[in-house]
């Protein structure tokens, strides 16, 4: 293999660019998209969103660190072009779209940029998922998806409790169980559980090297498990509230954590293909 040595200054600069490690390219791209990260940081700092995204970001960085020895010097043009378009879209979005849309495009641009340096056949979806989850999305999810989730949860809980012999009725997102009013308000919507479950799915997939197609096929089941888990959690707590004067905070936390453990176990089981899944 022959090496071409540039003699012109411009050629020497180009050579240095070519010699830059992939992580430096990614760092440059991240720096170019800094307004989005600044917005995300501000939203976490001012308390308008939970700082859960930090966990997803750390998981993503761990995945990148693990992949770093395999990253190629020559990026794949297709993914690079996609990354370029996404970056341009994110930049345009600063002027024309809500900040969350811009940040989502920026996260996808970073994921595409990373994919362009990865060897063929490597999955990108878990990385893209972790990048999106690292953004402050919980409040927006709560705003847009919270109410439908609350209605569905309340309705399914009502049916479940009726099947178990309780006198239950739903009105909007409130439930009348055994003559007591219990509301399924925003903190009960299950949006946090949605985030936890998808984080669990993406992290397990990223570290296990699950292919994109497999992950894509299994993700809908994650949604079903989350919904089922939230209905179960809600039903247990509503039944307790209907039977006692006051249910302590510890009981609420305990039931919530047990159900979350079951949901995540189910997610791991599904993501790992069912047959060989065990914790």
């Amino acid at each position, binding site marked *: 293999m022959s090496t071409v040595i540039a003699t012109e200054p411009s050629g020497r600069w180009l050579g240095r660019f070519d010699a830059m490690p992939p992580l430096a390219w990614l760092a440059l791209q991240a720096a170019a998209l800094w307004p989005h990260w600044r917005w995300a940081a501000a939203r976490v700092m001012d308390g308008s969103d939970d700082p859960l995204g930090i966990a997803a970001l750390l998981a993503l960085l761990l995945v990148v660190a693990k992949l770093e020895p395999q990253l190629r010097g020559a990026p794949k043009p297709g993914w690079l072009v996609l990354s370029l378009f996404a970056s341009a*879209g994110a930049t345009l979005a600063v002027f024309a779209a809500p900040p969350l849309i811009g940040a989502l495009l920026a996260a996808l641009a970073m994921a595409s940029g990373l994919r362009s340096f990865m060897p063929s056949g490597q999955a990108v979806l878990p990385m893209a998922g972790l990048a999106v989850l690292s953004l402050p999305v919980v409040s927006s999810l709560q705003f847009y998806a919270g109410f439908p989730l609350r209605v569905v949860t309340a309705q399914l809980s009502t049916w479940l409790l009726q099947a178990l012999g309780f006198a239950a009725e739903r009105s909007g997102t409130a439930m009348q169980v055994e003559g007591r009013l*219990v509301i399924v308000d925003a903190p*009960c919507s299950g949006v946090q559980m949605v985030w936890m479950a998808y*984080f669990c799915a993406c992290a*397990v997939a990223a*570290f296990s090297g699950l292919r994109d197609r497999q992950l894509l096929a299994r993700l809908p089941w994650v949604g079903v498990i989350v919904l089922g888990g939230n209905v179960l959690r*809600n039903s247990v707590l509503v039944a307790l509230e209907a039977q006692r004067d006051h249910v302590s905070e510890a009981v609420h936390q305990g039931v*919530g954590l047990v159900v*979350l453990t079951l949901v995540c176990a189910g997610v791991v089981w599904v993501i790992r293909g069912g047959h060989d899944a*065990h914790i």
Partner: protein
Amino acid sequence: MTRPLLPLHPLTRTGRVMWCIALSLFSAALMLFWSPARADDSEAPKAESPYFAVNSSDPGTDRLPLKSTHVDVHISGVIADVTVTQHYRNEGQRAIEARYLFPGSTQAAVHAMSVRLGDRLLTARIKEKQQARIEYEAAKKEGKTSALLEQHRPNVFEMNVANILPGDDVAVELRYTELLTPHDAQYGFVFPTVVGPRYNSPARAEGNGAAIGGAYLKSGEPSQTAFTLRVTLDTPVAVKEIASPSHEVMVDGAGTWHAVVSLKPTEVPANNRDFILNYRLAGDRIESGLMLFRGPDDGGENFFLAMIEPPKAIATKQINPRDYIFVVDISGSMHGYPLDTAKVLLRNLIGGLRASDTFNVMLFSGSNRMLSPTSVPATRANIEQAIKTIDAMGGSGSTEIVPALKRVAALPKADDVSRSVIFVTDGYVSVEAEVFQLIRQNLNQSNVFAFGIGSSVNRHLIEGMARAGQGEAFIVTKPEQAADQAERLRKIIESPVLTQVKARFEGLDVYDVEPAQLPDVLGGRPVMVFGKWRRDDSQAGLPVNAKLIVEGRTADGQYRNELATAGREDQTSSALRHLWARQRIAALSDQEALEGNGAQKPAITQLGLTYSLLTQYTSFIAVDQRVRNPNPSLTPVVDQPSPMPEGVSNFAIGAEVPSTPEPGAWLALLVVIGIVVATLWSRRRN
């Protein structure tokens, strides 16, 4: 060979490029025409119901602009002259508009307001309410510092101060006069400090006026507004037994003709309850008599006030069968201490019934229920049953007083039975006018007695119900007062003092006399008559020589009392102008509540403008003519929060409904990370 439907299949290299370009163009177009929704609540109407104040994340805005309230009271004889000074100071970095809902005495005639801004003094003018609001909004938009004082109810006012710049200290001073009516020879001055959180019924009728909202601190959270109060008493005879059942006070000059009372300094401002001051005059006298005020010679009006001490109560020999209906408020605002006080009161009231009496109890909040379908005899067993039911109740829910009243009015009653309806409530509703109207129209065959329970009750409702129902108002602030008040009611019912009361002047041409019809005297309150008198030009320069004759019936027979006017002229009693007008406005407002449709609006407005009085149709406005705020449109409105009245729980604003929240975010995240790590660990081991 057939041509493909799409000339470029998406999976060919050129097709993929074209597909990407098309998607990019589509995305770009979407982004360019995207019109993001933005939250803008600048024009949002203010909350119509009380709410808990929320701390803002914007540190540049001062959310507690009212720094102090100072009250200076001068009581001379039976007239209290009160000056309230509210200090607003903006310690933030942004200009603000402050809005503050505060209470006043039910009898207050607010007649002056001024605003001190630095070294400038602005005197407020009285204007028609709508006009004043328009002027205020215009001044606010122009960036001028301005203040507007509006009346929502005779005892609920709203102060708006626009364009308070950072560092500004705006002192708003308002003045009112009030007539102190003694009761059983005891005088009481009350200064309410907080408007209790009112329940605004969705079915509220138009005639009740605007809903009453306002921001509140949580129960037990102390106010950041300093509160100081000083009362100076000047009496014709020595004053004695000066005491405050509500506050710790320092008294200087007790037993003399000049006494000064001030609040003891406390760490926490004592502005979460009514300030109540009671005192007596030496010899248990009351300031009875006739007071004449001669207006200016150039056609000014002359006023009089007569206060006649009632005869001693004597129990009637003939006792009619009596039926008592107790109507008890068990809404959220009564939860806890107020309801405990109400229970003690009811045990005393019901426990003191005679065996020949009958009674029933209605408990109401969002709905209402009766103890039994019809009244039951006051036997020991029935009384025990009623007390057991009352003991079992807890306060929650809304305060639908109007349906409760309608149900009471519909209860059948035998002709020979004398019925007393006894309401027990804190009065935290905003349907006063509708309640008064219902009582006048439907309970005119009964005597209505209203017990206000709590540290800061809605006295307008309690006193108004008693007035409309030809009864008496009682305020019980503590359980230990319950027995005395129950005994007082028993005495009043058994021993009406004076009925068929009439008052007439001889030798004096009087007109515009208030009240037009004198009510029966039930308790130990004096008979009061306000009015105007015409001068006799032939007697110019001479003192008025006439007499007032009051007649009526007592248990002993006919009653007659005469008061001579000679030597009763007092040129310092100019407050009679305002007190007469205030009385007149109250009478017109009562009439308007009956007739509806704002029938008395022109008359009340005219009285307000003529006598410079704050009314439901007139407001005080002061505008600084300098433009001080360059960005008035960016000025946030800050609702000054009031403390929750003492003893009132957070249930008054909203009961906590159980919900099923998810576990804490960090705990949940720890669980998930644990599962992920365990999964990967087990995978590596395998």
